Protein backbone atom coordinates (compact mmCIF):
# COMPACT_ATOMS: atom_id res chain seq x y z
CA UNK A 1 0.00 0.00 0.00
CA UNK A 2 2.70 2.44 1.06
CA UNK A 3 4.69 1.43 -1.98
CA UNK A 4 1.78 2.20 -4.28
CA UNK A 5 1.38 5.58 -2.62
CA UNK A 6 5.06 6.32 -3.15
CA UNK A 7 5.17 5.16 -6.76
CA UNK A 8 2.21 7.05 -8.13
CA UNK A 9 1.50 10.77 -8.19
CA UNK A 10 -1.76 10.93 -6.24
CA UNK A 11 -1.45 14.60 -5.38
CA UNK A 12 -0.79 15.51 -8.99
CA UNK A 13 -3.81 13.49 -10.14
CA UNK A 14 -6.14 15.18 -7.70
CA UNK A 15 -4.64 18.55 -8.57
CA UNK A 16 -5.56 17.92 -12.21
CA UNK A 17 -9.08 16.93 -11.14
CA UNK A 18 -9.38 20.19 -9.21
CA UNK A 19 -8.11 22.23 -12.16
CA UNK A 20 -10.56 20.52 -14.52
CA UNK A 21 -13.39 21.08 -12.06
CA UNK A 22 -12.68 24.77 -11.44
CA UNK A 23 -12.20 25.65 -15.11
CA UNK A 24 -15.19 23.54 -16.12
CA UNK A 25 -17.35 25.20 -13.47
CA UNK A 26 -16.41 28.68 -14.70
CA UNK A 27 -17.05 27.72 -18.30
CA UNK A 28 -20.34 25.98 -17.63
CA UNK A 29 -21.65 28.82 -15.45
CA UNK A 30 -20.89 31.39 -18.15
CA UNK A 31 -22.28 29.35 -21.03
CA UNK A 32 -25.19 28.02 -18.97
CA UNK A 33 -26.31 31.54 -18.07
CA UNK A 34 -26.22 32.57 -21.71
CA UNK A 35 -28.26 29.52 -22.75
CA UNK A 36 -30.73 30.12 -19.90
CA UNK A 37 -31.23 33.71 -21.09
CA UNK A 38 -31.81 32.40 -24.62
CA UNK A 39 -34.38 29.94 -23.31
CA UNK A 40 -36.48 32.61 -21.60
CA UNK A 41 -35.97 35.26 -24.31
CA UNK A 42 -39.03 36.80 -25.94
CA UNK A 43 -37.79 35.99 -29.46
CA UNK A 44 -38.96 32.54 -30.59
CA UNK A 45 -35.82 31.85 -32.64
CA UNK A 46 -33.57 32.49 -29.63
CA UNK A 47 -35.71 30.19 -27.48
CA UNK A 48 -35.54 27.49 -30.14
CA UNK A 49 -31.73 27.83 -30.23
CA UNK A 50 -31.50 27.45 -26.46
CA UNK A 51 -33.86 24.49 -26.40
CA UNK A 52 -32.11 22.83 -29.32
CA UNK A 53 -28.74 23.19 -27.62
CA UNK A 54 -29.98 21.71 -24.34
CA UNK A 55 -31.82 18.82 -25.98
CA UNK A 56 -28.86 17.89 -28.16
CA UNK A 57 -25.99 18.15 -25.72
CA UNK A 58 -27.76 16.88 -22.64
CA UNK A 59 -28.88 13.70 -24.36
CA UNK A 60 -25.40 12.88 -25.65
CA UNK A 61 -23.14 10.91 -23.29
CA UNK A 62 -20.24 13.01 -22.00
CA UNK A 63 -17.99 10.09 -22.87
CA UNK A 64 -18.94 10.42 -26.51
CA UNK A 65 -18.25 14.16 -26.48
CA UNK A 66 -14.83 13.63 -24.91
CA UNK A 67 -13.78 10.84 -27.24
CA UNK A 68 -15.07 12.77 -30.24
CA UNK A 69 -13.01 15.82 -29.28
CA UNK A 70 -9.79 13.85 -29.62
CA UNK A 71 -10.47 11.13 -32.19
CA UNK A 72 -12.68 13.34 -34.33
CA UNK A 73 -11.87 16.99 -33.81
CA UNK A 74 -8.15 16.80 -33.08
CA UNK A 75 -6.98 13.87 -35.19
CA UNK A 76 -9.21 14.27 -38.23
CA UNK A 77 -10.29 17.90 -38.35
CA UNK A 78 -6.96 19.07 -36.98
CA UNK A 79 -8.48 21.34 -34.34
CA UNK A 80 -5.51 21.27 -32.01
CA UNK A 81 -5.43 23.61 -29.05
CA UNK A 82 -1.84 22.79 -28.22
CA UNK A 83 0.93 20.79 -29.87
CA UNK A 84 1.48 18.99 -26.61
CA UNK A 85 -0.94 16.04 -26.61
CA UNK A 86 -1.48 16.25 -22.83
CA UNK A 87 -2.27 19.97 -22.85
CA UNK A 88 -4.50 19.52 -25.87
CA UNK A 89 -6.49 16.76 -24.16
CA UNK A 90 -6.73 18.81 -20.95
CA UNK A 91 -8.23 21.84 -22.68
CA UNK A 92 -10.59 19.76 -24.79
CA UNK A 93 -11.76 18.11 -21.56
CA UNK A 94 -12.40 21.54 -20.05
CA UNK A 95 -14.36 22.60 -23.15
CA UNK A 96 -16.45 19.44 -23.27
CA UNK A 97 -17.16 19.56 -19.51
CA UNK A 98 -18.28 23.18 -19.93
CA UNK A 99 -20.46 22.44 -22.96
CA UNK A 100 -22.07 19.43 -21.29
CA UNK A 101 -22.67 20.91 -17.86
CA UNK A 102 -23.86 24.24 -19.26
CA UNK A 103 -27.11 22.43 -20.07
CA UNK A 104 -27.53 21.47 -16.41
CA UNK A 105 -26.67 25.01 -15.26
CA UNK A 106 -29.21 26.34 -17.76
CA UNK A 107 -31.95 24.05 -16.47
CA UNK A 108 -31.08 24.91 -12.86
CA UNK A 109 -31.36 28.63 -13.62
CA UNK A 110 -34.58 28.11 -15.51
CA UNK A 111 -36.07 26.33 -12.53
CA UNK A 112 -34.88 29.33 -10.48
CA UNK A 113 -36.62 31.71 -12.87
CA UNK A 114 -39.77 29.66 -12.45
CA UNK A 115 -39.73 30.26 -8.68
CA UNK A 116 -39.95 34.03 -9.17
CA UNK A 117 -43.50 35.29 -8.68
CA UNK A 118 -44.95 36.92 -11.83
CA UNK A 119 -45.37 40.14 -9.85
CA UNK A 120 -41.60 40.67 -9.92
CA UNK A 121 -41.39 40.73 -13.70
CA UNK A 122 -44.55 42.79 -13.90
CA UNK A 123 -43.24 45.31 -11.38
CA UNK A 124 -39.96 45.57 -13.27
CA UNK A 125 -41.83 46.27 -16.50
CA UNK A 126 -44.22 48.72 -14.91
CA UNK A 127 -41.37 50.95 -13.78
CA UNK A 128 -40.18 51.00 -17.36
CA UNK A 129 -37.27 48.53 -17.36
CA UNK A 130 -36.59 46.87 -20.68
CA UNK A 131 -36.43 43.07 -20.96
CA UNK A 132 -32.63 43.16 -20.66
CA UNK A 133 -32.72 45.49 -17.68
CA UNK A 134 -35.40 43.55 -15.83
CA UNK A 135 -33.45 40.37 -16.47
CA UNK A 136 -30.18 41.85 -15.18
CA UNK A 137 -31.50 43.87 -12.28
CA UNK A 138 -34.51 41.92 -11.07
CA UNK A 139 -34.91 38.43 -12.44
CA UNK A 140 -31.45 36.85 -12.75
CA UNK A 141 -30.27 37.87 -9.25
CA UNK A 142 -33.37 36.22 -7.80
CA UNK A 143 -33.05 33.27 -10.14
CA UNK A 144 -29.45 32.67 -9.01
CA UNK A 145 -30.48 32.85 -5.38
CA UNK A 146 -33.43 30.57 -5.97
CA UNK A 147 -31.44 28.01 -7.88
CA UNK A 148 -28.43 27.57 -5.61
CA UNK A 149 -29.42 24.02 -4.67
CA UNK A 150 -29.74 22.71 -8.26
CA UNK A 151 -26.68 24.73 -9.29
CA UNK A 152 -24.76 23.09 -6.46
CA UNK A 153 -25.81 19.64 -7.63
CA UNK A 154 -24.74 20.58 -11.16
CA UNK A 155 -21.27 21.58 -9.93
CA UNK A 156 -20.92 18.45 -7.78
CA UNK A 157 -21.89 16.38 -10.82
CA UNK A 158 -19.26 18.26 -12.82
CA UNK A 159 -16.53 17.43 -10.29
CA UNK A 160 -17.43 13.76 -10.51
CA UNK A 161 -17.74 13.86 -14.29
CA UNK A 162 -14.29 15.41 -14.63
CA UNK A 163 -13.10 11.81 -14.28
CA UNK A 164 -14.38 11.13 -17.79
CA UNK A 165 -11.35 13.10 -19.00
CA UNK A 166 -9.39 9.94 -18.21
CA UNK A 167 -10.85 8.48 -21.41
CA UNK A 168 -8.80 10.90 -23.48
CA UNK A 169 -5.60 10.43 -21.55
CA UNK A 170 -5.75 13.16 -18.94
CA UNK A 171 -4.16 11.52 -15.92
CA UNK A 172 -6.50 12.95 -13.33
CA UNK A 173 -7.95 10.77 -10.58
CA UNK A 174 -9.67 8.15 -12.74
CA UNK A 175 -6.73 8.02 -15.13
CA UNK A 176 -4.35 7.25 -12.30
CA UNK A 177 -6.84 4.82 -10.84
CA UNK A 178 -6.91 2.75 -14.03
CA UNK A 179 -3.11 2.81 -14.17
CA UNK A 180 -2.86 1.52 -10.60
CA UNK A 181 -5.57 -1.10 -11.11
CA UNK A 182 -3.79 -2.36 -14.19
CA UNK A 183 -0.36 -2.67 -12.61
CA UNK A 184 -0.91 -3.51 -8.97
CA UNK A 185 -2.79 -6.07 -6.94
CA UNK A 186 -4.81 -5.50 -3.79
CA UNK A 187 -6.27 -2.21 -4.91
CA UNK A 188 -9.17 -1.98 -2.47
CA UNK A 189 -7.22 0.56 -0.40
CA UNK A 190 -6.48 2.59 -3.51
CA UNK A 191 -10.17 2.59 -4.37
CA UNK A 192 -10.92 3.98 -0.93
CA UNK A 193 -8.30 6.70 -1.33
CA UNK A 194 -9.98 7.88 -4.51
CA UNK A 195 -13.45 7.54 -3.01
CA UNK A 196 -12.43 9.53 0.05
CA UNK A 197 -10.72 12.10 -2.17
CA UNK A 198 -13.98 12.72 -3.97
CA UNK A 199 -15.91 12.73 -0.70
CA UNK A 200 -13.55 15.48 0.53
CA UNK A 201 -14.12 17.46 -2.64
CA UNK A 202 -17.88 17.10 -2.83
CA UNK A 203 -19.18 16.69 0.72
CA UNK A 204 -18.24 20.15 2.10
CA UNK A 205 -19.53 21.66 -1.10
CA UNK A 206 -22.86 19.89 -0.62
CA UNK A 207 -23.11 21.13 2.97
CA UNK A 208 -22.17 24.67 1.92
CA UNK A 209 -24.73 24.63 -0.87
CA UNK A 210 -27.52 23.51 1.47
CA UNK A 211 -26.53 26.20 3.96
CA UNK A 212 -26.32 28.88 1.31
CA UNK A 213 -29.55 27.92 -0.41
CA UNK A 214 -31.35 28.33 2.90
CA UNK A 215 -29.56 31.53 3.82
CA UNK A 216 -29.79 33.19 0.41
CA UNK A 217 -33.30 32.02 -0.46
CA UNK A 218 -35.47 34.98 -1.33
CA UNK A 219 -37.90 35.38 1.56
CA UNK A 220 -41.42 35.52 0.23
Amino acid sequence: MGEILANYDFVGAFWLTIQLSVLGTIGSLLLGTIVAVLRVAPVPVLRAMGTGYVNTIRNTPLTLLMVFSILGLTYILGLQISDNAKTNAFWWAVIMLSLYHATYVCEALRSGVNTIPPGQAEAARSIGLTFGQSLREVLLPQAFRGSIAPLGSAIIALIKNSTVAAMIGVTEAAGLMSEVVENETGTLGVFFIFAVGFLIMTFPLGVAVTWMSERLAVKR
Partner: protein
Amino acid sequence: MSAPALFDAPGPKTRALYNVFTVVALAVVAVIGYVVITKMGEKGQLAPYMWEPFLTPVAWVEYLIPGLLGTLRAAATAIVLALVFGLLFGMGRLSRSPFIRIPCGLVVEFFRAVPVLIMVIFAFGVYSGLQLFGSALNPFIAVVTALTLYNGSLIAELVRSGVNALPKGQSEAGLSIGLTRGQTLRQIQLPQALTAMLPALIGQTVVILKDSALGYSITYLDLLNWSKTLGSAYGNTIPAYIVAAGLFITLNYLLTRLASLVEHRLRSRGRTAGAVTQAIPAAPLGPPEGEEILHPHGHQEEPPR
Protein backbone atom coordinates in the same frame (compact mmCIF):
# COMPACT_ATOMS: atom_id res chain seq x y z
CA MET B 1 -46.57 24.61 -13.71
CA SER B 2 -47.22 28.30 -14.03
CA ALA B 3 -44.41 30.21 -15.61
CA PRO B 4 -44.07 33.88 -14.81
CA ALA B 5 -44.84 36.18 -17.70
CA LEU B 6 -41.41 37.66 -18.21
CA PHE B 7 -42.32 40.01 -20.99
CA ASP B 8 -45.24 41.98 -22.39
CA ALA B 9 -46.97 41.42 -25.66
CA PRO B 10 -44.65 43.31 -28.03
CA GLY B 11 -45.62 46.58 -29.61
CA PRO B 12 -44.62 47.62 -33.14
CA LYS B 13 -41.17 48.91 -32.10
CA THR B 14 -40.38 45.80 -30.05
CA ARG B 15 -41.58 43.57 -32.84
CA ALA B 16 -39.14 45.29 -35.18
CA LEU B 17 -36.40 44.72 -32.59
CA TYR B 18 -37.39 41.05 -32.31
CA ASN B 19 -37.09 40.75 -36.07
CA VAL B 20 -33.56 42.16 -35.88
CA PHE B 21 -32.69 39.63 -33.20
CA THR B 22 -34.21 36.84 -35.26
CA VAL B 23 -32.14 37.79 -38.30
CA VAL B 24 -28.94 38.12 -36.25
CA ALA B 25 -29.54 34.78 -34.52
CA LEU B 26 -30.23 33.01 -37.79
CA ALA B 27 -27.11 34.61 -39.27
CA VAL B 28 -24.99 33.35 -36.36
CA VAL B 29 -26.40 29.83 -36.78
CA ALA B 30 -25.78 30.03 -40.52
CA VAL B 31 -22.16 31.13 -39.98
CA ILE B 32 -21.51 28.33 -37.49
CA GLY B 33 -23.11 25.84 -39.86
CA TYR B 34 -21.05 27.17 -42.75
CA VAL B 35 -17.78 26.93 -40.79
CA VAL B 36 -18.54 23.38 -39.65
CA ILE B 37 -19.48 22.25 -43.14
CA THR B 38 -16.52 23.85 -44.91
CA LYS B 39 -14.15 22.52 -42.26
CA MET B 40 -15.56 19.03 -42.68
CA GLY B 41 -15.56 19.44 -46.45
CA GLU B 42 -11.88 20.44 -46.45
CA LYS B 43 -10.99 17.24 -44.66
CA GLY B 44 -13.18 15.18 -46.95
CA GLN B 45 -15.69 14.28 -44.25
CA LEU B 46 -18.66 15.07 -46.46
CA ALA B 47 -17.64 12.74 -49.26
CA PRO B 48 -20.48 10.35 -50.12
CA TYR B 49 -18.42 7.24 -49.33
CA MET B 50 -18.13 8.46 -45.74
CA TRP B 51 -21.88 8.38 -45.25
CA GLU B 52 -22.99 5.66 -47.66
CA PRO B 53 -22.26 2.80 -45.23
CA PHE B 54 -25.15 3.99 -43.07
CA LEU B 55 -27.52 3.31 -45.94
CA THR B 56 -26.41 -0.31 -46.18
CA PRO B 57 -27.74 -3.01 -43.88
CA VAL B 58 -24.21 -4.24 -43.09
CA ALA B 59 -23.29 -1.20 -40.98
CA TRP B 60 -26.46 -1.58 -39.00
CA VAL B 61 -26.59 -5.34 -38.62
CA GLU B 62 -22.92 -5.80 -37.84
CA TYR B 63 -22.08 -2.66 -35.88
CA LEU B 64 -24.82 -0.29 -34.80
CA ILE B 65 -27.53 -2.73 -33.75
CA PRO B 66 -25.15 -4.91 -31.70
CA GLY B 67 -23.94 -1.64 -30.16
CA LEU B 68 -27.44 -0.49 -29.33
CA LEU B 69 -28.24 -3.90 -27.89
CA GLY B 70 -25.10 -3.77 -25.75
CA THR B 71 -26.04 -0.34 -24.41
CA LEU B 72 -29.65 -1.33 -23.81
CA ARG B 73 -28.70 -4.61 -22.15
CA ALA B 74 -26.40 -2.90 -19.66
CA ALA B 75 -28.87 -0.07 -19.06
CA ALA B 76 -31.91 -2.33 -18.61
CA THR B 77 -30.13 -4.70 -16.23
CA ALA B 78 -28.79 -1.77 -14.23
CA ILE B 79 -32.21 -0.08 -14.04
CA VAL B 80 -33.88 -3.17 -12.62
CA LEU B 81 -31.09 -3.82 -10.10
CA ALA B 82 -30.87 -0.14 -9.16
CA LEU B 83 -34.60 -0.11 -8.44
CA VAL B 84 -34.22 -3.07 -6.11
CA PHE B 85 -31.17 -1.50 -4.44
CA GLY B 86 -32.89 1.86 -4.19
CA LEU B 87 -36.07 0.45 -2.66
CA LEU B 88 -34.15 -1.61 -0.09
CA PHE B 89 -31.83 1.19 0.98
CA GLY B 90 -34.51 3.86 0.74
CA MET B 91 -36.67 1.83 3.12
CA GLY B 92 -33.61 1.23 5.26
CA ARG B 93 -33.02 4.96 5.55
CA LEU B 94 -36.61 5.43 6.67
CA SER B 95 -36.27 2.77 9.37
CA ARG B 96 -36.68 3.89 12.96
CA SER B 97 -33.87 1.68 14.16
CA PRO B 98 -30.53 3.50 14.02
CA PHE B 99 -28.77 0.18 13.43
CA ILE B 100 -30.49 -0.05 10.05
CA ARG B 101 -30.86 3.63 9.25
CA ILE B 102 -27.25 4.75 9.78
CA PRO B 103 -25.46 1.99 7.82
CA CYS B 104 -27.94 2.41 4.98
CA GLY B 105 -27.34 6.15 5.04
CA LEU B 106 -23.56 5.66 4.94
CA VAL B 107 -23.76 3.27 1.99
CA VAL B 108 -26.03 5.60 0.04
CA GLU B 109 -23.96 8.70 0.71
CA PHE B 110 -20.74 6.88 -0.15
CA PHE B 111 -21.85 5.55 -3.52
CA ARG B 112 -23.48 8.85 -4.39
CA ALA B 113 -20.17 10.66 -3.92
CA VAL B 114 -17.90 8.32 -5.88
CA PRO B 115 -17.69 8.99 -9.63
CA VAL B 116 -19.20 6.20 -11.71
CA LEU B 117 -16.06 5.86 -13.80
CA ILE B 118 -13.93 5.17 -10.71
CA MET B 119 -16.36 2.41 -9.74
CA VAL B 120 -16.40 0.99 -13.27
CA ILE B 121 -12.60 0.81 -13.39
CA PHE B 122 -12.33 -0.62 -9.91
CA ALA B 123 -15.05 -3.24 -10.41
CA PHE B 124 -13.46 -4.28 -13.68
CA GLY B 125 -10.04 -4.49 -12.03
CA VAL B 126 -11.38 -6.70 -9.26
CA TYR B 127 -13.40 -8.98 -11.54
CA SER B 128 -10.62 -9.51 -14.03
CA GLY B 129 -7.99 -9.80 -11.27
CA LEU B 130 -9.96 -12.57 -9.58
CA GLN B 131 -11.20 -13.94 -12.92
CA LEU B 132 -14.69 -14.01 -11.49
CA PHE B 133 -16.97 -14.17 -14.51
CA GLY B 134 -14.72 -14.93 -17.44
CA SER B 135 -13.25 -12.31 -19.72
CA ALA B 136 -16.34 -12.15 -21.93
CA LEU B 137 -18.66 -11.19 -19.10
CA ASN B 138 -16.36 -9.12 -16.88
CA PRO B 139 -16.86 -5.76 -18.60
CA PHE B 140 -20.64 -6.16 -18.70
CA ILE B 141 -20.87 -7.05 -15.02
CA ALA B 142 -18.47 -4.28 -14.04
CA VAL B 143 -20.57 -1.67 -15.87
CA VAL B 144 -23.77 -3.02 -14.36
CA THR B 145 -22.25 -3.08 -10.85
CA ALA B 146 -21.14 0.54 -11.02
CA LEU B 147 -24.37 1.79 -12.56
CA THR B 148 -26.44 -0.13 -10.02
CA LEU B 149 -24.57 1.17 -6.99
CA TYR B 150 -24.57 4.79 -8.16
CA ASN B 151 -28.10 5.00 -9.51
CA GLY B 152 -29.47 2.75 -6.77
CA SER B 153 -28.20 5.28 -4.23
CA LEU B 154 -29.87 8.10 -6.11
CA ILE B 155 -33.12 6.12 -6.26
CA ALA B 156 -32.85 5.43 -2.52
CA GLU B 157 -32.75 9.19 -1.98
CA LEU B 158 -35.75 9.59 -4.28
CA VAL B 159 -37.65 6.99 -2.28
CA ARG B 160 -36.79 8.68 0.98
CA SER B 161 -37.69 12.19 -0.16
CA GLY B 162 -40.82 10.90 -1.88
CA VAL B 163 -42.07 9.25 1.30
CA ASN B 164 -41.11 12.26 3.42
CA ALA B 165 -42.97 14.59 1.07
CA LEU B 166 -46.27 12.76 1.57
CA PRO B 167 -48.78 14.46 3.86
CA LYS B 168 -48.38 13.33 7.45
CA GLY B 169 -52.03 12.26 7.56
CA GLN B 170 -51.19 9.28 5.35
CA SER B 171 -48.92 7.53 7.83
CA GLU B 172 -51.07 8.65 10.76
CA ALA B 173 -54.13 7.13 9.11
CA GLY B 174 -52.26 3.90 8.49
CA LEU B 175 -51.06 3.68 12.08
CA SER B 176 -54.46 4.56 13.48
CA ILE B 177 -56.18 1.66 11.75
CA GLY B 178 -53.70 -0.66 13.40
CA LEU B 179 -51.09 -1.25 10.71
CA THR B 180 -47.51 -1.59 11.89
CA ARG B 181 -44.92 0.94 10.73
CA GLY B 182 -43.62 -1.51 8.14
CA GLN B 183 -47.09 -2.18 6.82
CA THR B 184 -47.86 1.54 6.66
CA LEU B 185 -44.67 2.12 4.71
CA ARG B 186 -45.20 -0.74 2.29
CA GLN B 187 -48.94 -0.54 1.77
CA ILE B 188 -49.71 3.16 2.10
CA GLN B 189 -46.65 5.37 1.73
CA LEU B 190 -44.49 3.55 -0.83
CA PRO B 191 -47.20 3.07 -3.48
CA GLN B 192 -47.99 6.77 -3.39
CA ALA B 193 -44.36 7.84 -3.28
CA LEU B 194 -43.45 5.54 -6.16
CA THR B 195 -46.24 6.90 -8.35
CA ALA B 196 -45.15 10.45 -7.63
CA MET B 197 -41.54 9.46 -8.32
CA LEU B 198 -42.29 7.88 -11.68
CA PRO B 199 -41.19 10.86 -13.82
CA ALA B 200 -37.95 11.18 -11.86
CA LEU B 201 -37.36 7.44 -12.20
CA ILE B 202 -37.79 7.62 -15.96
CA GLY B 203 -35.42 10.59 -15.96
CA GLN B 204 -32.93 8.40 -14.12
CA THR B 205 -33.04 5.86 -16.94
CA VAL B 206 -31.71 8.60 -19.23
CA VAL B 207 -28.75 9.02 -16.87
CA ILE B 208 -28.18 5.27 -16.82
CA LEU B 209 -28.35 5.04 -20.59
CA LYS B 210 -25.78 7.82 -20.99
CA ASP B 211 -23.52 6.49 -18.26
CA SER B 212 -23.45 3.04 -19.81
CA ALA B 213 -21.13 4.65 -22.37
CA LEU B 214 -18.51 4.72 -19.60
CA GLY B 215 -18.08 1.03 -20.35
CA TYR B 216 -16.04 2.26 -23.32
CA SER B 217 -13.09 2.61 -20.94
CA ILE B 218 -13.08 -1.08 -20.03
CA THR B 219 -13.80 -2.38 -23.53
CA TYR B 220 -17.47 -3.08 -22.89
CA LEU B 221 -19.05 -3.42 -26.33
CA ASP B 222 -21.65 -0.69 -26.18
CA LEU B 223 -22.85 1.65 -28.89
CA LEU B 224 -19.87 3.96 -28.46
CA ASN B 225 -17.34 1.16 -28.76
CA TRP B 226 -19.10 -0.35 -31.76
CA SER B 227 -19.22 2.99 -33.53
CA LYS B 228 -15.49 3.35 -32.97
CA THR B 229 -15.01 -0.06 -34.59
CA LEU B 230 -17.34 0.97 -37.39
CA GLY B 231 -15.33 4.16 -37.86
CA SER B 232 -12.10 2.19 -38.17
CA ALA B 233 -13.64 -0.38 -40.50
CA TYR B 234 -15.00 2.18 -42.96
CA GLY B 235 -12.50 4.94 -42.26
CA ASN B 236 -15.31 7.31 -41.29
CA THR B 237 -14.75 8.04 -37.62
CA ILE B 238 -16.52 11.39 -37.58
CA PRO B 239 -19.71 10.25 -39.35
CA ALA B 240 -19.77 7.14 -37.14
CA TYR B 241 -19.69 9.20 -33.96
CA ILE B 242 -22.28 11.61 -35.29
CA VAL B 243 -24.65 8.75 -36.07
CA ALA B 244 -24.03 7.22 -32.63
CA ALA B 245 -24.74 10.58 -31.00
CA GLY B 246 -27.93 10.83 -33.05
CA LEU B 247 -29.06 7.43 -31.79
CA PHE B 248 -28.32 8.36 -28.17
CA ILE B 249 -30.10 11.70 -28.54
CA THR B 250 -33.19 10.11 -30.10
CA LEU B 251 -33.46 7.44 -27.40
CA ASN B 252 -32.94 9.85 -24.53
CA TYR B 253 -35.20 12.48 -26.01
CA LEU B 254 -38.01 9.95 -26.29
CA LEU B 255 -37.45 8.88 -22.68
CA THR B 256 -37.53 12.51 -21.51
CA ARG B 257 -40.77 13.08 -23.39
CA LEU B 258 -42.21 9.97 -21.77
CA ALA B 259 -41.19 11.31 -18.34
CA SER B 260 -42.91 14.64 -18.89
CA LEU B 261 -45.96 12.91 -20.31
CA VAL B 262 -46.25 10.73 -17.21
CA GLU B 263 -45.71 13.77 -14.99
CA HIS B 264 -48.44 15.64 -16.82
CA ARG B 265 -50.86 12.76 -16.38
CA LEU B 266 -50.05 12.38 -12.71
CA ARG B 267 -50.53 16.07 -12.14
CA SER B 268 -53.84 16.26 -13.94
CA ARG B 269 -54.99 13.24 -11.99
CA GLY B 270 -53.98 14.98 -8.79
CA ARG B 271 -55.91 18.03 -9.82
CA THR B 272 -59.19 16.21 -10.29
CA ALA B 273 -58.81 14.83 -6.79
CA GLY B 274 -59.69 18.22 -5.40
CA ALA B 275 -56.38 20.05 -5.34
CA VAL B 276 -56.44 23.82 -5.65
CA THR B 277 -56.37 24.75 -9.29
CA GLN B 278 -54.46 27.83 -10.19
CA ALA B 279 -55.19 30.19 -13.00
CA ILE B 280 -52.29 29.97 -15.41
CA PRO B 281 -51.11 33.33 -16.73
CA ALA B 282 -50.68 33.44 -20.45
CA ALA B 283 -46.93 33.35 -20.86
CA PRO B 284 -45.35 32.40 -24.16
CA LEU B 285 -42.49 30.63 -22.41
CA GLY B 286 -42.21 27.75 -24.78
CA PRO B 287 -43.52 24.28 -24.10
CA PRO B 288 -43.71 23.39 -20.43
CA GLU B 289 -41.31 20.64 -19.61
CA GLY B 290 -41.20 18.42 -16.61
CA GLU B 291 -37.76 19.33 -15.41
CA GLU B 292 -38.32 20.74 -11.96
CA ILE B 293 -38.44 18.92 -8.71
CA LEU B 294 -41.51 16.79 -8.67
CA HIS B 295 -44.32 17.37 -6.29
CA PRO B 296 -46.26 14.43 -5.03
CA HIS B 297 -49.72 14.68 -6.46
CA GLY B 298 -52.44 15.75 -4.09
CA HIS B 299 -53.62 12.98 -1.85
CA GLN B 300 -56.83 11.49 -3.00
CA GLU B 301 -59.58 11.38 -0.45
CA GLU B 302 -61.63 8.24 -0.33
CA PRO B 303 -65.30 8.96 0.15
CA PRO B 304 -66.40 7.75 3.58
CA ARG B 305 -68.37 4.57 3.47
